[in-house]
């Protein structure tokens, strides 16, 4: 599928979203994360023990290629800033916000919506703990911004089930945007 999708952050949300998109036929991905795989990531992220200490961009690409050998994700092992976001995600129709800190989430959303008109942002906010997963929803917050999550849960640890419920919301919304099931259809 030609539509270019960016994923900002390859942690619990981003790594699971990447896998779901590749399984759904997406092969034009931009993957960004500055971090390496740590032991504490293995409870919810797609990585395996052999990836400990390896860049998440590298480990994620390797796993995606095991699903679709033809995929050639563009990767950036860099911390995203207001200055580099437009260049790194140039040409993306949709950008998945899957970063960790609330400040970084707000920076990415503000930068894309201000500097990259026409680009959709699909953000994740409120996934911690093991509260009721039915509180995790997809909300069409702004014209070009969708926010998935319960909007509030940030205390306690993050566990696979709720994180993956939210990642599923984000990936599903991308399919809906691309297949024209939302207000506006994205060119495939």
């Amino acid at each position, binding site marked *: 599928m030609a539509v270019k999708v960016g994923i900002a952050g390859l942690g*619990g949300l981003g790594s699971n979203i990447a896998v779901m998109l590749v399984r759904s036929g997406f092969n034009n991905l931009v993957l960004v994360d500055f971090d390496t795989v740590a032991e504490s990531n293995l409870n919810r992220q797609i990585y395996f023990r052999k990836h400990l200490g390896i860049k998440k961009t590298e480990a994620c690409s390797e796993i995606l290629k095991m699903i679709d050998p033809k995929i050639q994700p563009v990767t950036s092992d860099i911390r995203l800033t207001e200055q580099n976001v437009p260049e790194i995600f140039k040409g993306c129709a949709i950008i998945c916000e899957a970063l960790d800190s609330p400040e970084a989430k707000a920076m990415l959303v503000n930068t894309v919506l*201000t500097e990259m008109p026409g680009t959709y942002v699909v953000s994740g906010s409120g996934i*911690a703990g093991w509260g009721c997963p039915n509180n995790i929803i997809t909300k069409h*917050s*702004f014209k070009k911004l969708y926010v998935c999550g319960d909007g509030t849960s940030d205390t306690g640890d993050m566990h696979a089930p709720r994180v993956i419920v939210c990642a599923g919301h984000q990936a599903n919304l991308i399919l809906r945007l691309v297949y024209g099931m939302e207000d506006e259809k994205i060119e495939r």
Partner: protein
Amino acid sequence: MIANGKEMKIGAGTTLQEFLVSSGYDLCKVAVELNGMISPRKTFNDVVLKNTDSLEIVSFVGGG
């Protein structure tokens, strides 16, 4: 003014930044859409709110 779907009165001359701070928002963690247009953060202090405005505020929480 309507903020996140709720109708409210806004004092004359109140800036977007004053409204957000007095409502308890952390300016580093929000994105704001005013009348269907994204409000760049550097303009928060220059935008004077009107009672006809429609405001959507998203406040992000951590975890990814």
